[in-house]
Each structure stands twice: as structure tokens, then as C-alpha cells.
């Protein structure tokens, strides 16, 4: 058989530039020490199993699921904010109709979770979880409350900068991203090993949302912009 004719042209996905992603092992973040593999990862070509991925959760998104301030009888306490942006890939193309999930602490820095130990009040009007689908241009929007800083036990007097957790699917199982969005000017950045684990300073800064007057609504809520870039296909499909 002509071996060339059996070859399949598939998309390969771009690999993130060196230093733009955190390592698995990062000693200042203590919990990585016993949870990071010490063997080198096996580098290998992409196959159908990674360049495909689920279209998940579309039927699970309710109309109001992107508004975390209206999930209970009353309004949650705190600073109302609008977080919006675009999901795009590393070629600059929009990633439409993909599921975005968020979760966060309340304005006092307390998560609604059974293992949470921070002695700050729970807000009966705030769960801290939301989801939405990006529109056909990859745009999304959440209404929520600005989370408080959160104390943890990583080191003496450790406080996480205020953050919102984001989970985004994209088009392939390897474009899947779980990350955290931060707020501009947080004095805790310099002390936070999770934020500092990203070696490249410019890449790290991209996790900080930007205050945005255009999406700010008078007398109602401040706007913050946060664009999310997922790994995209390499410019030209290659023969494998």
C-alpha cells in the first residue's frame, strides 16, 4: 500500500510559549510538593483523542445563571461588579458558544463550601457559582459581587488576592483551561505563590482584569474586562 495515502492530516494545537504557564512543581506553593510528578512528562504528538473535545453543558445553562446577585431572595452584600470579555484562541479567532463556569468567595472572603475554615460570615444571598455560554463572537458577561481576600495556611499570614475562578472548555480537550481572574492593584500579588508561579511577568499580568468605564453602569456596578485566550490550532495542519 502507498504509505502516503494512508496518512491523515490533522490539526495540531499550538504549545504555549516557555514561561507562560506555571510549572507543576513550585515549592513556594506548598501543596505542589507532594502532588507534582517528578518524572518528566512524556512529550508526544497530538492525536484525535486530544484535538477533539466535549461540547458540554449547553443544556445546563439557565437564563439567569450568569447573574450571581439574583440567585436568592435578597441581594448579596458587597460591591456589585460586571465582569465581561471575550474568549479567543491563540490565532486571534473567537471561540463561540463555549461553556464558561465561575466560582468565588463572597465579599467577606468566605466560600460556601463544607471544608471552608475562614471565620468570616456566610452571605445567605450568595452562593458564588455561575455559568454562561459565550455568544457567537466569544463574548461573555457575568454580574457578581467583588470577592474578598481569602486567608490560607500556605505560609505565615498568607492571604490570597481577591480572585474569581474560571473554567473554560474551548474546542478540544487540550484547549481546556482552569484559571483565576484577579483585580487591578491588589497589594497581595507580591506575596501570593499561586500568582507568582507563572514565570513570565507579562503572561502573569494577563490574569489581572482591567477596570473598564465603558461597561461600568452609573449608580449600579463597576465593569471589569477579562479576555481569555485558549490554545488554538497551529496555523497549518501538518501531515502525521
Amino acid at each position, binding site marked *: 500500500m502507498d504509505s502516503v495515502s494512508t496518512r491523515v492530516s490533522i490539526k495540531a494545537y499550538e504549545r504555549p510559549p516557555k514561561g507562560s504557564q506555571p510549572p507543576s512543581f513550585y515549592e513556594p506553593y506548598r501543596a505542589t510538593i507532594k502532588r507534582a510528578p517528578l*518524572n518528566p512528562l*512524556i512529550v508526544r504528538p497530538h492525536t484525535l483523542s486530544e484535538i477533539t473535545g466535549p461540547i458540554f453543558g449547553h443544556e445546563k445553562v439557565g437564563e439567569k445563571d450568569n447573574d450571581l446577585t439574583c440567585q436568592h431572595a435578597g441581594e448579596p452584600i458587597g460591591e456589585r461588579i460586571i465582569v465581561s470579555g471575550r474568549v479567543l484562541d491563540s490565532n486571534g479567532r473567537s471561540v463561540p458558544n463555549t461553556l464558561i463556569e465561575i466560582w468565588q468567595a463572597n465579599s467577606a472572603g468566605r466560600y460556601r463550601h463544607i471544608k471552608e475554615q475562614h471565620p468570616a460570615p456566610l452571605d445567605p444571598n450568595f452562593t458564588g457559582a455561575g455559568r454562561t455560554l459565550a455568544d457567537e463572537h466569544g463574548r461573555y458577561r457575568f454580574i457578581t459581587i467583588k470577592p474578598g481576600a481569602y486567608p490560607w495556611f500556605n505560609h505565615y499570614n498568607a492571604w490570597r488576592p481577591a480572585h474569581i475562578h474560571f*473554567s473554560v472548555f474551548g474546542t478540544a480537550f487540550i484547549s481546556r483551561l482552569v484559571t483565576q481572574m484577579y483585580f487591578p492593584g491588589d497589594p497581595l500579588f507580591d506575596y501570593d505563590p499561586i500568582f507568582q508561579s507563572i514565570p513570565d511577568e507579562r503572561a502573569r499580568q494577563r*490574569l489581572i482584569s482591567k477596570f473598564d468605564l465603558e461597561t461600568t453602569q452609573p449608580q449600579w456596578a463597576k465593569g471589569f474586562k477579562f479576555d481569555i485566550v485558549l490554545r488554538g490550532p497551529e496555523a497549518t495542519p501538518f501531515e502525521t
Partner: protein
Amino acid sequence: MKPDIDLVPTPSQTVGPFFAIELTADEHCVKCVAGPQAKGERVSITFRVLDADRAPVDDAMLEIWQADANGKYNHSDDLQPKQLDPGWIGFGRVATGEDGSCVLETVRPGGVNHVTLHAPHLTVAVYARGMLKQLYTRVYFSGDAANDEDPILQLIPLDRRDTLMAQPDPARPGHWRFDVKLQGDRETVFFDV
């Protein structure tokens, strides 16, 4: 680094300890990959996630992506000339409990033709507090004749390949076990993909 920093993929950050508020809450948790109508041999896989000391990791999340019983993915980039099992999605998402384990119900996937035949496998992404980014691994089925020819297994040193083999539970037909050892002796093989 790309000249245009705005097009560098957003850095990953840990899923943290509280992801269950959203990701594995109620209907967002998908313990059953294959619906009751799915074709194929039904299997359940008990995963256990363990750290360097072999302590159970009780705050991990596993996401699973797999082909149907015929080896076809539900995705427009799967150009194999095969019919997708109607209704097949192929995605699972489960959180570990106090003993570091979780159970996934599914059907045994078929082999995937991509240049050569890939032995039946599940792709697994592991997330946890203490993991700054997800780790990718594969679950193969021990004893499957196609494993010997699998092009990905062949890239792995012989003495580490068995870390990717789910083992049948001799007491319970159709039940398999797979340990994810994040670090240390017999550390699971993870991929840079």
C-alpha cells in the same frame, strides 16, 4: 514568547479546594459517561488519586474524554469513516471523596484509527488543589491485544507502561481499577501534549 502577548494562551491556575461549588455540584458532575442506550460493553472504573506519600487526594477532580464503543469521537474534527453512536457525548467529570476515589460508569471504547490503530483508551485530565495546571494521562485496559501495537504506549519506557493499565477487579466482572499516583514510586505517566 510571541511578540503579541495578547495571543499567548492565558496561564492556568489551580482549581483550588472549593471547585465543587460549581464544577462538580449536582448536575455539573457527570459520573456516567455512557447513557443507558449506549452501545458496547458496560464497565465501571474506580479511580484512586494518591500523593507522594500515597495519602488519598480527597480534593481532586477528574475529567474524562473518550470515543464510543466503535472508536468514534463526538466531534467535527473526527474524520474517521464511522457512524457515531446516536446520543454519544463521551465526557465525564467526577470529584474524589475522602478516600481519594471516585467511580466512573461508561462503556469500553473502541480503538481509534489515527495513522495507525490506537488501542482502546480514555483520556483523563487531573485537577486538584496543589496542581497549578491539569495533568493529562490515559487509561488503557490491561490485557487488550491492541495495547502491544499502540503508538503512544510505545513512546513510554517499558517499565512505566503498566501505570496506564486499568486492572480488572477479579471479584466483580466489568469493574476496573486505576490508580493515579501523582508522584513517587510507580508514578503515573503524564503527557506533555
